[in-house]
C-alpha cells in the first residue's frame, strides 16, 4: 500500500475534530450540522418509543431538551453554560426521585437515562460526546425490551439502532453524503445480524427475565376472574387481546364444542358468585374416554395458575395439575407466554361420583334473595319425576321468556336474577348463566357456574384457532344422577348464534359491536389475521425460545446438558468464523458501481463459462472477433452485442434503453 493511501486511511479512521489525534477535546464547535442532525434523530428514535410508558413530564422534558438542542444546532449557537446544565441535571434527578421514590429499578432508571441523554446532547461539542450520546441511545433501544418484546418494538429498536450507527458513521466520515452514511450504517447493522443470531441461539439462557423484575416483564391481563356479579356492569368491555391460541393436529372442533374451561364458581351469596376451594391432584378426577382432540395450546400470561383448556383435558405436556372441580392448573402462575401439548376428551363423563359435600354446596341459595325466581322454581319443580325433568322445564320456561341477548344491559339491583328474568329481560352470558343457576338451585338441582372462553376464530393464514378476551363466556353445569356434571349453556337459548357463530352473529344491532367484529371491516380483519399470524411466529420462535427449548436444540446438535464448555467453544468458534468471513468479504474485489460495466462483466463471465474468457486488456471489438471465431453459429449476435457495448461505453450518446437492450440480448444469448 502506498504511503499516501495509508495516510488517507488513517485520516478516515481518526474521528473528526481530532486533526492530530492527540487532543481529546479541541475547542470550538466540532459538531457539524449533519452530525448533530444524525445524533438528534437517533436520540428522538431512542426517547420517542419510551414516551408511551414513561411519566408524561419525563417524556415531554426529554423531547423538549432535544428540541432545544435542535434549535441551537439550527441557529449555530453555542451550547448552554455548564453551570446551567449541572443545575438542570440535579433538578431532573430530584424530579425522578420524587416521581418514583427511589432511583433503583427499571422505570426510574429509564426515566433518568432519557433525561440525561437530552442533557448530554445539549453539552455535545466534541467527538467523545457524540460517542457517549450514541451509547446512551443504544442502551435506551435495549431498554425498550424491558417494557415490550413484541415484533413492532423489535422493529423500532432496529430502526433506532440504525440511526445511532448512522450518527457514528457521520462522526467518523463526515465528508460523505447522508445516503452513504445510512448505507454504511445499514451494512454495519447487517453485519451484526449473524452475530446476533449466533448469540441468540447459543448463548446460555437464564430462566426468567434477565433484569430480575419478573412481575414487570410480561403484562398480564385476563377477561376472567374468580368472582362474578351479574348486573353490576352495564357494558361489557370488548378487548381484542388474544387470550390463547390453539394449533390442532386434526381438524378443529366445531364452534359449539369450543368451551375453554376457566374458573368454576360454586358459591352464590345472593348477588355475587365466588369460586370455591378445590383439591388438586396429579391426575384428572375422570377417566378420559371417547373422541380425542390433540392440540398445541399457547396461552398468554395472566399471572394465575389457570390452564384454560378445552373440556376435558388430559395427558398434558409439560405436566399439569387437575382440580376436583374439573379444571387444570399449571405448576406456577403464568408469568410468561407458555405452551402446552394437550389432549381434550369432550365426551368424557365427569363427576359421576361427586362428593355429597360438593353437591350440597351446589344447591345452596341464600333465602333472602330473588324471591320471584324461587317462586317460579318451586312451581316448575312441583310434580317433576327427577332432576332431568326439572332441567327440561326450566329450559322451556327460559325459552318461553324470550330473553334478549345484548352487550348493554340495564343495571340491576339487589335481586339480579329476578330483575333479569321478569323485568329487563335483556342481558349477556353472565345474566343468563346466573339466572339459570339460581332457578336450578331453587328447584334443588346441583348447579354451578363455569367461566372461561367460548368459540374463537380460525386464522386463515396459519390455521390456528385464536381465542380473544372478547370470547370470555359464562355457562352453567348441572349435576344429574347417573350422568354426572352436564354442561348447559343458557345463553344458547336466547342467542344460539353466540355459540355457533361468535359475538357478531348474536348481536342484531351492529352498532353494539366492536369495530373489528363488523362485517364491513372484513378487510381490516384480514389484515389483523395476517399480522397475528406473523406475531405468533415471533412469539413461538423468538420469545418462546426459553432455556428448555435451548437445551432441546443443543441436545439435538450434540451439545447436551453439562456441556457448557463445549457450547461456549462452539459459540466462540462461530463468532470467530463470522469475523473471518466478514474480513474476507472486506478484502474482496470492490463491486463495479457502473451498471454498464457490471453488464459487460456478466457477459464476459458468461463467455468465460462457455470456454473463452476475455483477457483484461482485450477491447470489445477484439473480443468479438475471437468469440465469433470460436462460436461461428452465433457470430452475428456476438458481434452485435460487443458493438452495442462498445457504442454504449465509448460512443457519444448512450440512451438508457440501449443498456436494457444490451442486458436483454446478453440474457437471451444461448451458445451451442
Amino acid at each position, binding site marked *: 500500500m502506498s504511503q499516501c493511501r495509508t495516510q488517507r486511511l488513517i485520516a478516515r479512521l481518526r474521528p473528526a475534530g481530532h486533526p492530530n489525534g492527540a487532543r481529546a477535546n479541541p475547542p470550538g464547535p466540532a459538531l457539524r450540522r449533519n452530525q448533530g442532525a444524525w445524533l438528534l434523530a437517533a436520540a428522538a428514535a431512542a426517547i420517542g418509543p419510551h414516551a408511551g410508558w414513561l411519566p408524561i413530564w419525563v417524556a415531554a422534558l426529554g423531547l423538549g431538551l432535544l428540541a432545544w438542542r435542535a434549535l441551537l444546532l439550527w441557529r449555530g449557537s453555542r451550547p448552554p453554560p455548564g453551570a446551567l446544565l449541572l443545575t438542570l441535571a440535579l433538578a431532573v434527578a430530584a424530579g425522578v426521585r420524587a416521581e418514583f421514590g427511589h432511583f433503583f429499578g427499571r422505570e426510574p432508571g429509564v426515566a433518568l437515562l432519557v433525561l440525561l441523554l437530552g442533557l448530554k446532547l445539549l453539552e455535545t461539542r466534541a467527538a467523545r460526546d457524540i460517542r457517549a450520546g450514541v451509547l446512551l441511545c443504544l442502551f435506551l433501544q435495549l431498554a425498550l425490551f424491558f417494557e415490550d418484546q413484541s415484533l413492532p418494538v423489535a422493529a423500532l429498536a432496529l430502526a433506532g439502532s440504525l440511526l445511532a450507527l448512522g450518527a457514528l458513521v457521520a462522526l467518523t466520515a463526515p465528508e460523505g453524503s447522508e445516503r452513504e452514511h445510512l448505507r454504511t450504517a445499514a451494512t454495519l447493522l447487517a453485519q451484526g445480524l449473524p452475530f446476533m443470531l449466533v448469540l441468540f441461539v447459543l448463548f446460555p439462557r437464564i430462566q426468567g427475565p434477565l433484569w430480575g423484575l419478573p412481575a414487570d416483564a410480561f403484562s398480564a391481563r385476563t377477561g376472567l376472574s374468580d368472582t362474578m356479579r351479574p348486573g353490576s356492569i352495564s357494558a361489557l368491555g370488548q378487548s381484542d387481546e388474544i387470550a390463547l391460541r390453539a394449533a390442532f393436529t386434526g381438524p378443529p372442533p366445531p364452534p359449539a364444542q369450543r368451551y375453554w374451561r376457566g374458573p368454576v364458581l360454586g358459591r352464590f351469596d345472593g348477588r355475587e358468585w365466588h369460586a370455591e376451594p378445590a383439591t388438586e391432584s396429579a391426575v384428572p378426577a375422570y377417566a378420559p374416554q371417547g373422541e380425542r382432540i390433540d392440540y398445541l395450546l399457547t396461552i398468554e400470561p395472566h399471572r394465575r395458575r389457570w390452564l384454560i383448556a378445552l373440556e376435558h383435558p388430559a395427558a398434558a405436556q409439560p405436566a399439569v395439575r387437575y382440580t376436583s372441580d374439573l379444571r387444570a392448573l399449571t405448576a406456577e402462575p403464568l408469568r410468561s407466554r407458555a405452551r402446552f401439548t394437550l389432549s381434550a376428551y369432550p365426551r368424557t363423563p365427569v363427576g359421576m361420583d361427586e362428593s355429597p359435600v360438593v353437591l350440597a354446596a351446589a344447591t345452596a341459595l341464600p333465602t333472602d334473595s330473588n324471591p320471584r325466581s324461587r317462586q317460579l322454581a318451586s312451581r316448575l319443580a312441583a310434580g317433576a319425576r327427577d332432576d332431568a325433568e326439572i332441567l327440561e322445564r326450566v329450559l322451556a320456561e327460559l325459552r318461553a321468556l324470550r330473553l334478549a341477548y345484548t352487550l348493554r344491559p340495564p343495571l340491576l339491583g339487589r335481586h339480579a336474577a329476578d330483575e333479569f328474568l321478569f323485568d329487563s329481560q335483556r342481558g349477556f352470558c353472565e345474566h343468563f348463566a346466573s339466572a339459570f343457576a339460581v332457578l336450578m338451585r331453587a328447584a334443588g338441582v346441583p348447579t354451578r357456574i363455569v367461566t372461561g372462553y367460548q368459540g374463537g376464530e380460525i386464522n386463515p393464514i396459519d390455521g390456528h384457532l385464536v381465542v380473544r378476551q372478547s370470547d370470555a363466556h359464562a355457562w352453567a353445569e348441572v349435576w344429574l344422577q347417573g350422568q354426572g356434571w352436564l354442561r348447559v349453556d343458557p345463553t344458547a337459548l336466547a342467542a344460539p348464534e353466540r355459540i355457533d357463530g361468535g359475538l357478531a352473529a348474536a348481536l342484531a344491532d351492529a352498532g353494539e359491536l366492536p369495530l373489528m367484529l363488523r362485517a364491513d371491516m372484513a378487510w381490516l380483519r384480514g389484515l389483523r389475521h395476517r399480522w397475528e399470524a406473523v406475531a405468533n411466529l415471533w412469539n413461538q420462535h423468538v420469545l418462546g425460545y426459553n432455556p428448555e427449548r435451548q437445551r432441546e436444540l443443543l441436545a439435538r446438535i450434540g451439545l447436551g446438558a453439562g456441556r457448557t464448555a463445549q457450547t461456549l467453544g462452539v459459540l466462540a468458534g462461530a463468532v470467530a468464523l463470522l469475523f473471518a468471513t466478514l474480513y474476507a468479504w472486506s478484502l474482496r474485489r470492490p463491486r463495479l458501481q457502473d451498471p454498464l*460495466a457490471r453488464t459487460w462483466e456478466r457477459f464476459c463471465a458468461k463467455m468465460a463459462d462457455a470456454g473463452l474468457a476475455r*483477457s*483484461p*486488456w*482485450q*477491447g*470489445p*471489438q*477484439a473480443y468479438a472477433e475471437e468469440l465469433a471465431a470460436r462460436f461461428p453459429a452465433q457470430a452475428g449476435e456476438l458481434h452485435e452485442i460487443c458493438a452495442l457495448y*462498445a*457504442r454504449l*461505453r*465509448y*460512443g*457519444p450518446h448512450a440512451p438508457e434503453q440501449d443498456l436494457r437492450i444490451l442486458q436483454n440480448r446478453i440474457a437471451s444469448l444461448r451458445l451451442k
Partner: protein
Amino acid sequence: MPLHHANRLLEAASRIILGKERELRLALACLIARGHLLIEDVPGVGKTTLAHALARLMGLQFQRIQFTSDLLPADILGVSIFDRDTTAFRFHPGPVFAQLILADEINRATPKTQSALLEAMEERQVTTDGQTCALPEPFFVIATQNPAHQVGTFPLPESQLDRFLLRIRLGYPDPEAERALLMGEDRRGLLERQPAVIGPAELLEMQQAAQGLHVADALVAYVQALLAATRNSTELAGGLSPRAGLGLLSAARAWALLDGRDHVLPEDVQILFPHVAAHRLHLAGDGRPAPPATLVRLLQAVAVG
C-alpha cells in the same frame, strides 16, 4: 464524406504501392492527425514511392530532400542573397517550403542539419537572419531512415524523434505483391500519370472530422493507464511524454475515422500504440529502442476499462 475521400485515396494508393494496405492506412492516419511520419527501413522497399504517391494523390506540393552527410541547414531552409538591384538581402526559400516534404535518409545528415528540419517541423515556420517565414499549410514531413546499424548514419536524438507522430516499417512485400511489382509497370511512371484524387480542402475536412470524434472518459482513462504503464515499467528507461499521449489519442481518432466510426475504441489505441511508442521508448539496460515484444507486454499489462 470524409470517409469517402479516405477510401478513394487508399484505393488509388494501394494500386501504386502493392500489398501495403495497413502501412498506407497508418500513413494516412498520421497525416489526418496532422503528424509527421517516420519510415524506417532498408533502402528500396518503397519508402520514397509511398511519400510521393501520397503527395500526388492528395494534390499537395511535393519536395524531396535527399539527406547526405554534407547537407547544410541552408540547403533545406533557404538562403538570403544580396540583390544588387534592390540593394537588399532577399530570401530564397529552400525545399522545405512545400506542403509535403520527403526527407530521405534523414539519419545520413549531421545533427545540425537534422535539427534545422525538425525545428521547422515543430514550429511550422522558418526563421533566418531575424526574418520569419511561415511554412505552407498543410505541412507534412515524411522522413525515411535507414536502420541505425548501417554505416555512415547519425541516429536521431530522442528529443527529435518525439516530433514524429508515428513510425512505421514497410518491410519486404509479400510474394504475391512482389510478383505483381516485378511483372508490372514501373511505379514512377504509374505515379506520373496518376491524377490527384482529393485536394487540400478534402484533407482539411478529414482532419477536422477526426478532431471531432468522440473520446469517452473510459478511453481517456485507458490511454492514461497506458502512459502510466510506460512510465512505471522497469523494463524501460523512461515513459511516454504527454505530447506522445496527445499524439496517441489524435492518431487513434484518425484511425477510428478511417474505420468509419464516430467514436474511438481501445482497439484503435492498441493498434496505434506500437507505432507511437516504438521510436520514443528505450530499454533500461542498453538503451536500445524498445522491441515490439516489450510493447506488446505493456499493452497486455493494462486492462481495458
